[in-house]
């Protein structure tokens, strides 16, 4: 009962200074929102990336020419598939397409069958020439959907019209968002790829422990190739997003420190009015512990309100507004993609760490100066 009454008084005390507290909550929530946005965005991007990699082949074999990615001869498929331990070696046809209408980059993939791990939201996979399936981002950029047509300019600078037979659904929006899938034959024609060449070769391996060994054998057999393992891709994604988020967090940590200094300054500079109030409460029978409990509730209410508001704002910013403020920094080159909506993923551990780093200093900076005031004799209030 006593604790409930002190909490009630804390709430009424906060309401009494509502304008000051609202401005404090606004600054506090903004700081939390920025930090949480960075965490949400990088974590979601990393998870999106890991989703992509679930269905990635164990090895992707690219050909290098003058240090750059080049088309790979089809004969390599046969020699690679004959290496012991290799399950399959399948040529892949894909390329990037810059759409000058929407100023976006699309990824064009040629297939002969289904793409594992991806399912259609509606429609069917292409089964005839000049048919395609598109990702949601492509559909929204070109304002088209299943049943419509999609006009693209091929490498001979000629317009090619595709009939859209379906749109993608996937747990990973980043995976399909910029995708246009057509038959391999259409893709070869569209990019005017030379006969007997593929973009790269997807290799599956029976025993995951042998990936590195087989990659070595492929390089020995074809010295102009670069076998890329699944784990290497994962490490690259991790490194890129960790580096970017690290930069962002460093910048915003300064904001957090500045906020903490502000909070500390505010709290240590406890106003004469607050000091006087503490003196009155002590004089009329409040114990030091009661005063500390009062200030604890005040600090908790302010900091948790700010924390929750900041988290909600960050959630909306990242998952509904596509991280408008942060995405140019975190996503880097991928801003050329059609805008995609991240699937919300939240790491509870990160939330707890953020809460610890923001709520604790504020509550402490509220309680400590009040404690210093509360332990002094209430006699001073008699003289005020």
């Amino acid at each position, binding site marked *: 009962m006593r604790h409930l009454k002190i909490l009630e008084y804390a709430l009424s005390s906060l309401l009494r200074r509502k304008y000051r507290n609202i401005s404090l909550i606004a600054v506090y929530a903004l700081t939390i929102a920025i930090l949480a946005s960075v965490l949400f965005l990088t974590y979601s991007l990393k998870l999106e990336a890991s989703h992509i990699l679930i269905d990635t082949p164990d090895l992707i074999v690219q050909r290098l020419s003058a240090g750059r990615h080049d088309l790979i001869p089809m004969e390599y498929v046969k020699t690679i598939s004959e290496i012991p331990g290799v399950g399959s070696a399948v040529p892949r046809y894909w390329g990037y397409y810059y759409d000058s209408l929407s100023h976006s980059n699309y990824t064009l993939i040629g297939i002969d069958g289904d793409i594992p791990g991806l399912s259609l939201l509606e429609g069917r996979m292409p089964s005839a020439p000049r048919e395609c399936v598109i990702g949601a981002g492509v559909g929204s950029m070109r304002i088209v959907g299943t049943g419509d047509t999609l006009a693209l300019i091929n490498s001979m600078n000629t317009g090619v019209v595709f009939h859209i037979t379906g749109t993608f659904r996937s747990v990973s929006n980043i995976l399909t968002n910029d995708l246009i899938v057509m038959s391999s034959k259409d893709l070869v024609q569209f990019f005017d790829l030379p006969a007997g060449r593929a973009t790269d070769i997807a290799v599956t391996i029976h025993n995951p422990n042998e990936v590195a060994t087989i990659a070595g054998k492929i390089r020995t057999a074809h010295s102009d190739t670069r076998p890329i393992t699944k784990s290497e891709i994962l490490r690259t994604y991790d490194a890129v997003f960790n580096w970017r988020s690290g930069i962002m967090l460093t910048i915003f940590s300064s904001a957090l420190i500045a906020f903490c200094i502000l909070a500390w300054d505010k709290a240590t500079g406890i106003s004469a009015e607050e000091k006087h109030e503490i003196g009155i409460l002590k004089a009329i029978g409040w114990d030091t512990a009661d005063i500390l409990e009062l200030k604890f509730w005040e600090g908790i209410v302010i900091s948790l309100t700010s924390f929750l508001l900041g988290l909600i704002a960050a959630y909306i910013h990242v998952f509904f507004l596509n991280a408008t403020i942060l995405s140019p920094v975190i996503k880097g080159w991928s801003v050329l993609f059609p805008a995609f909506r991240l699937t919300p993923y939240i790491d509870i551990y990160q939330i707890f760490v953020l809460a610890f780093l923001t709520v604790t200093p504020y509550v402490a900076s509220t309680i400590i100066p009040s404690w210093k005031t509360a332990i002094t004799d209430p*006699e001073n209030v008699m003289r005020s």
Partner: protein
Amino acid sequence: MDSLIRTENVTKIYNPRKPDEVRALESATLNIDKGEVVVLKGPSGSGKTTLLSLIGCMGRPTSGRIVVDGRDIAKLPERFLTLIRRRTFGFIFQQFNLIRNVSVLENILLPLYPVDISFADMRLRGEKILEDLNIRDRMNTKVNKLSGGEQQRVAIARALINGPEIIIADEPTAHLDRKLSTDLLRILQDLNVSGKTVVIATHDPFVYDHPFIKRIVEMRDGRIQDIRLT
């Protein structure tokens, strides 16, 4: 009569052994009996507020003993002093010391927040006291919207909410006109009639010359000069 409050050679030094050391009270010895009305009289700086605050457990003496209801308060830990303040004393301050922008009712209930009684009982008790002091109609008004006299009544109501045995009033008429001072003294007199011990610090002749005052303690330069019955 039983001796309710006893001070023995009480000295209070602020900032001891520092350049700004102040000897506010020097060897003050005083007995206050249960049910008495005592006035501490003297000019500013005479030590009456210091003595009042020490009697009221708001500070500790530098030396000497203060015994309240048989307990030597100078030796008690802080939390026991708080309990004594809460249960034994009701304070009426010179500046009222009400919490601004808070309603009359909430202000007078403040001493009950750390006590284990329900909101409903608190409210009942508060309304009864406001009724007795004729300010129940102002119950939900913010205290800063009240007149000086009304604020003084709120301060008295707050002092009485815990049912204290001793009322301590520091310059209670300092901000009141004659009529309001008369009302205040009538309230204090009623409280005394109902059995409360009243200790008042003042330099207002209207207070110390009032017929209900039983004893006057003259103070000057931190010392008790004279104690006389009226």
